[in-house]
Structures are given as structure tokens and as C-alpha cells.
């Protein structure tokens, strides 16, 4: 099986002002289908730059990047947009849902830009199915401001899934959520991963990273650690543990 993500000596340099910023310096990385990878690092470590590149929002300064066998470095703006549409589902820290737009319509958004287009009837079916996957079928006509943070992030995940991408890319997906909701979202990711979805997640929280199966730690634009997660956490177990602890507190 070919790698979903293959980076070869990937570098990104920003030429802003007097000093060139070497955000990522020569990273080589391969992520296979079905992996759940957490990219960690302090701020300024280059992990966001790496994420943008993996998300085809940006192109490498030097080195190569293949997404699902496609050499991203040779593509123009429009091709990158099509590639994102087809192969990547984005989940952001701030959810980035369109306000005053129903959950359903938010989920339908990527299909508006699909080539070839999706018929209206199929659009609705697929959007509803994606919402069902994240357990929000009953909130389809709610607007983002009527939903909790966790629910909003689920809508965002449904939006990411609706075009059946090869890769789910999450940038600090739990950054704006409390710990319980964070675990719930990790649960959704783990479930999707179990069904075969490749997930790449940037986080700076170590406990969140432990829900993944592989941890990549970056420092100063380089990968310093790349290892299997040995003491992996599982969301259902953690949730019931959390419930027990809360009960204990209440009893005391």
C-alpha cells in the first residue's frame, strides 16, 4: 500500500524582511493509510507550517511532498484547491463554521466546490449521513450559535468527512474545548480511525496526543522524535473513568 503522506527532505523558508525564517528544515516523513498521527511541538517549532503544507494550503520551498501519490510541488493554486477538496478534510481549532448557516449547510459546503459537482439530492443525503456519523442527525437545522463547542466541532468533523477524503487533518482540534468534550472528540477520531480513516492531528497537549497511535515531535523545524504511542488512551475508557471520578467527588 502506498503512503498517504510522503515528505522527502521537506523545507519551508519564509522570506520576510531582513531575516529568512527557516520554519521547517528538511523533514522526511511517511504516513501510511489507517494511521493516527499526532504532531507535537512548542510554538515556533514548525508544526503549523508543516500542517499547512500537509494540508496543501502551501507548497514546499524545497524538497518533495506526495499526497496520495500526487506530487504537490508541481501544482498551481487551482489544482491545490481541487486536491484539498477531494482528498483532505480539515478540522480547525476555532471550528470555523459559517455563522447564521445551519449545520447541514455547513456540512454541504465542500460539495459546492466538488468537481464534478454533486447533485442536490445526493448533497443532502451525504450531508445527513456525515452528521449521523458524528452523532448529530437531530441538530441538522441548528445554527452554530445554538450548538455547544463540542457539537460545533462535530459539525466541523462532519464537514471534513463529507467528501470522503483520504486524510483527516486536525489543527488543535481540542484547543477550544473542555477536557470532557476533548475526550469525546478524540473518541470520534478514534472511531473514524478504526474504520480506516487516516488522521493527522496537531496538538501541544500531551494527554490528547496519547489518543493517537504515533507521535511526531518537532523542535526548531526538525523532527526530533517519531515513535509509536505505547501507553495509548482510549476515549470510552477515559470517559467512564472521568465519570467515576466525578461521582467520587460528589460523594465526598
Amino acid at each position: 500500500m502506498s503512503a498517504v503522506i510522503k515528505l522527502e527532505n521537506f523545507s519551508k523558508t519564509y522570506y520576510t524582511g531582513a531575516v529568512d525564517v527557516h520554519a521547517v528544515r528538511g523533514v522526511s516523513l511517511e504516513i501510511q493509510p489507517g494511521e493516527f498521527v499526532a504532531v507535537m511541538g512548542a510554538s515556533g517549532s514548525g508544526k503549523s507550517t508543516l500542517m499547512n503544507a500537509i494540508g496543501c494550503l502551501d507548497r514546499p520551498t524545497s524538497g518533495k511532498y506526495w499526497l496520495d501519490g500526487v506530487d504537490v510541488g508541481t501544482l498551481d493554486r487551482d489544482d491545490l484547491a481541487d486536491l484539498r477538496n477531494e482528498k483532505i478534510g480539515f478540522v480547525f481549532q476555532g471550528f470555523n463554521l459559517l455563522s447564521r448557516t445551519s449545520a447541514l449547510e455547513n456540512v454541504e459546503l465542500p460539495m459546492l466546490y466538488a468537481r464534478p459537482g454533486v447533485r442536490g439530492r445526493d448533497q443532502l443525503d451525504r450531508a445527513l449521513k456525515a452528521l449521523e456519523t458524528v452523532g448529530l442527525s437531530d441538530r441538522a437545522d441548528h445554527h452554530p450559535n445554538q450548538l455547544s463547542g463540542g457539537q460545533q466541532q462535530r459539525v466541523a468533523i462532519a464537514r471534513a468527512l463529507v467528501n470522503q477524503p483520504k486524510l483527516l487533518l486536525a489543527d488543535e482540534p481540542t484547543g477550544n474545548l473542555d477536557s470532557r468534550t476533548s475526550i469525546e472528540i478524540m473518541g470520534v477520531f478514534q472511531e473514524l480511525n478504526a474504520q480506516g480513516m487516516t488522521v493527522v492531528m496537531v496538538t501541544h497537549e500531551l494527554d490528547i496526543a496519547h489518543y493517537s497511535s504515533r507521535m511526531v515531535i518537532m523542535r526548531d523545524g526538525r523532527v526530533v522524535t517519531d515513535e509509536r504511542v505505547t501507553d495509548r488512551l482510549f476515549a470510552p475508557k477515559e470517559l467512564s473513568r472521568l465519570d467515576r471520578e466525578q461521582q467520587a467527588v460528589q460523594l465526598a
Partner: protein
Amino acid sequence: MIVLATLKIAVRALKRNTLRTLLTMLGIIIGVGAVIAMVSIGNGAKARIESQIAAMGQNVILVMSGNISRGGFRFGFGNPGTLKVEDYEALRREVEGVAAISPEIRVSAQVAAGNQNHFPTVVGVGSAYVDIRSWRFASGANFTEADVRNANKVALIGQTASETLFGAGTDPVGQVIRIKNAPFTIVGFLKSKGMGMGLSSQDQDDVVFVPYNSAMKRLTGDTTFRSFSIQAATPDLMPSVQSEVIELLRQKHRIGPGREDDFIVRTQREISETATETSRTMTMLLGCIAGVSLLVGGIGIMNIMLVSVTERTREIGVRMAVGARGKDILMQFLIEAVTLSIVGGLIGILLGVGSSRLLSAKMGWETLTSPESIVTAFVFSAAIGIFFGFYPARKAAKLDPIDALRYE
């Protein structure tokens, strides 16, 4: 991306800020409305002038007294003075190709009937006048050449004058009116011709015609005419009739070569050309002023679209992240701008048509809303949307998705 879906997005975005959308549209609404109303007024005036000139009669040449200098004083057009009875007789006898000729003399006089007083236009004319100016009779008949010769006290009366003096629906033929206390018997009742030339709203039907001899001898005591109306037998004869008239009058008035005429000769076409030119200039002027307001409306759209792009930077980032191409974003904002301007344009058309109707009804101004001006205004408003929407839309399309997503 399907245009319909983009349209839906645009409409939703516009609905999100109803007040702002309406205010932005207002510029276009007023602009388009003003263009349509102004052009309607201009066209209405033009149509009226044209029908007015057609009502002057066929192949008519006007000779007006004018440009006389006496003792260093220069008198303007229409002054009593230069057109004498002998001139009339000579023109009648000697010019070839004349079908009919009539002198005119204005009488400024009060007209009374019973206990009613009125100030209509009283004109002394020849018996051919009503034919030349294509007046028709509602009842009665024209006065005769004998009436003119004998200076009989007979008169023709127009609709408005008759209504004022005798009341609506009364046939005035046989009634007696007193002009400057001289009793005149009405022999003919004229059919209506409508409003007068230009915006002055002079009523053509508020008129009394008497034989010119009667006017001169019994009313004014003048010995000169104000003007002659000459009808050429055919359109082809007009140039030769015109030059013969000029030659004869110069000879009669003993005007040496190189000296200015003391009369003015105008053919119907010349008058109509001047009048149409004037009304065309007016229409253009009004249209230009209205066009400026349309332009200002367009700038308003551009302004709001720029604000909207900045406000929705994150939305643009999200759309780009999930696969929108620059072109999709461009289309989205362009369609939004065009929707603004087209809806504004449609409302403006209604407003323009409505206000020109209102102007005709309340002010009595004739207006003419042509389908062309409506179509032009509509296309123009759409074009304004594209023109002024393009820059903001392109700005949105060129955003970098990473920066847009990070925008606070």
C-alpha cells in the same frame, strides 16, 4: 460550482445585513430611478414639441416681423412694424407655388360673454389660417373672405376659451362675445389641439380667431402684422417659395444688398430642428446628471463590498480550505455585487416609471418612458455591479488561504 448555489449564498449574505444591503441599494435605486424619470421627461417634451410642430400644418413657412433698427434702437423679433398689408397682398399675388397664406396679428384684449370675463389669446387671421394650421371644426364653419374684406364682427373660438366663457358642453356657435366691448358673433367652434410647446404649458385651445381686418380696424388700430403663415403647395416647392418670399420682401422693404433683413423667415423644418435639438440637449443634460448619481451608487457598492470582503476573510479562508478555487470566490462576491445592483436597478426602474407617471399626473408634464431606456438602465445597473464589484471580488479571490484562516 453551480451558479444557482452561488446565487443562494449571495442572497443569504445580503439578507444577513438587511439594513446595510438596503442602504447600498439605495444609491442604485435613486440613480436608475433618476435616469429613467429624467429621460422620460426629456422624451415627453420632445414628443410634445414634435406633435406641436406637426400641428403647425403641412409645408408651412413662417415670416415674422423683426430686426428693425430705428434711430439706433434695435427691436427684437415679433415687434409690430415691418410686415405691412401691401406685403401680404404682394406675397399673395406674386409668389409662385403658394397654396395658402394668412397674416396674423395679436390682440391683447379682455373677452367677455354674459357675466364671464376671460383673457384668451386673440389673433386676427386670414380666412386661410385654419386650413394652414389644420384646425378642425367641432361645429359651425370658418369665416369667409368677405367677412375679412368687410371687417365683419365674427369670431372662431377654441375649446378652452369657450368652456371658460360659456361652460363645458355648450355649443357657442351663434353666441356673442365682446372683445374690447365690440360684439363679435361666434361662427365656428374649433376642435381641441392640446397643450402648447415646451414646458410653458401654453394652452393652444384658449384662443379666439377674428378676421385680421376686423382686428386691425375695430380692435387694435395697427397697420402692420406680426407674422405671415405661408403654405407651399408641395414640400419640394418650399425652398423656392422661401427664397422668393425673401427676395420679394427685401425688394418691397427696399433693403439694399449686404443689409440685414428686417423680417425672419423660418420653415417648419428649421423650427422643428431647433426645437428637437434643444430638447435633445435637455434630455442629455438631465441624463448626465442622473448618470452621475448612478455612478455614486456604484461606488457605494464597491465600498460595501470591500468592507464585506474584509469582514468575511475567515469565511473566505474556510471556503478555500475546503476546496474553493479563486474563481469560485470571485464569482461569489461578484454575484453578490451584481445581485445588489440588479435588484436595486429593478426597484429603481419601478421608482423611475412611477415618479414619471406621478409627474405627468400632478404637474401636467408629458412624460414618455421608452422600453429602450428601461432596458438600458437595467443593463447599465448590472454592468455597474460587475464593474464596481470586480475589484473587491478579485481582492477576495487573491487572499492566501493560510492568512485568511488566521485572520482575526
